[in-house]
């Protein structure tokens, strides 16, 4: 599998470190509760199909990126820089 880094172009997956589901959001301070934190830390959709996920280009430009990938076929739909998405 190769990932299209927005900065470096298509690179081997060995250059990247995986974090997981990019849809997980830490609850805001005013919505913080044990149940909300449990959902954030432990529970995952784990879809068979399209998933948005965080990868770190740890042996490359060291940027965090969000890759949209099919978990059944490893087909890559897109890869974007994570920072603008997180700052939304």
């Amino acid at each position, binding site marked *: 599998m190769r990932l299209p880094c927005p900065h470096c172009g298509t690179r081997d997956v060995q250059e990247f470190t*995986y974090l997981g589901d990019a849809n997980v959001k830490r609850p805001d301070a005013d919505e913080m509760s*044990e149940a909300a934190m449990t959902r954030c*830390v*432990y529970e*995952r*959709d*784990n879809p068979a199909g399209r*998933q948005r996920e965080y990868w770190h280009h740890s042996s490359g430009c060291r940027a965090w990126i969000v890759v949209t990938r099919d*978990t059944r076929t490893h087909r890559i739909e897109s890869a974007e820089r994570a920072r603008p998405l997180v700052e939304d």
Partner: protein
Amino acid sequence: MRYSVFTLAAQTLKGHRGWKPAWRDASPEPEYDVIIVGGGGHGLATAYYLASQHGLSNIAVLEKGHIGSGNVGRNTTIIRSNYLLPGNTPFYEFSMKLWEGLEQEINYNAMVSQRGVLNLYHSDSQRDAYARRGNAMRLAGADAELLDRDEVRAMLPFLDYDNARFPIQGGLLQRRGGSVRHDAVAWGYARAADRRGVDIVQNCEVTGLTIDADGIHGVETSRGPIKARKVALAVAGSSSRLAAMAGLRLPIESHVLQAFVSEGLKPLLDRVVTFGAGHFYVSQSDKGGLVFGGDIDGYNSYAQRGNLPVIEDVMESGMALWPGLGRVRVLRHWGGVMDMSMDGSPIIDHTPVRGLYLNAGWCYGGFKATPASGWCFAHLIARDHHHPVAAAYRLDRFATGHLIDEKGVGAQPNLH
């Protein structure tokens, strides 16, 4: 037909023309007392123990493909009970005891071979950690021996004892560990369950769960709806997909784990050996092939095939342990989809939906657990309370903080 030396002799005289299929290819009835979703090792064992220990017989096992086509036929066939934590050790030791009596119990040759599992250590601190693990095992009634370098060398003279980075200093040996022919486990449990009246329905995919405010009432399948008061999920690899049909999100990610087998060799390795400085383990099958494996690929995957970087990593670890492996050719490799739970330990529990039970999250270790998993899951389904040795495998432990984090890496499924 009961299998014995006499039936074998009688069949031999008749030219082996009288063997009957080992289980019926059942069609689904409209209603059952218990439906088990998933015809793998755990599902079939659960059905068998529900029938043999709890007197139920109106049971169906629904399997999407054919039985044994999932992880029970994709693992590396190792059994052991060398766990450290109190939530795990009694469960896996119970499983080991069930393995020891399994073939007589189900009248099926599963080729249970207690050839010993040896975990190598490569540093003083790792020796201390293994000594602690061995003591925990012995306190729980399992067997463990701490071996020094010379004792290991006498057993396995061909390993690389003077590796510059990872010299072998010794190992923790569990003599009762070993390997079992994995397909025979699925077939043996299927035959034994079938003989007690369980319907094993193959090519029957569950497409939905019938749930209302009172709980579950049955399942929708590719072969029509089937009613049941109790539905039990034993579909590791796809647990999240089935649970999503009930509106549940599980503390699980699906990851692919690869395994490898070499060309057949003459008898060479009479134990299961694990490398302590990387993730690599190897044993020799009765056909002569070396069976080995390592880490998961590390990203969510439902593809039953992996990628090359992990293959390279496994081969490098193997070469660091046993340089002679470089002369051996790999014959084939494959992948299976694991339920990687958030703390690396399984779940055998009720769900918030009344009548829906969950057996999931087996990570790397589902095969060795097959008998105890079936036994404890059957206990839960029949009696609605946890079996004592599986009481820690609760679904709510992630919310309450009672994690069973054997590797101590936290909520990182790809690191367990």
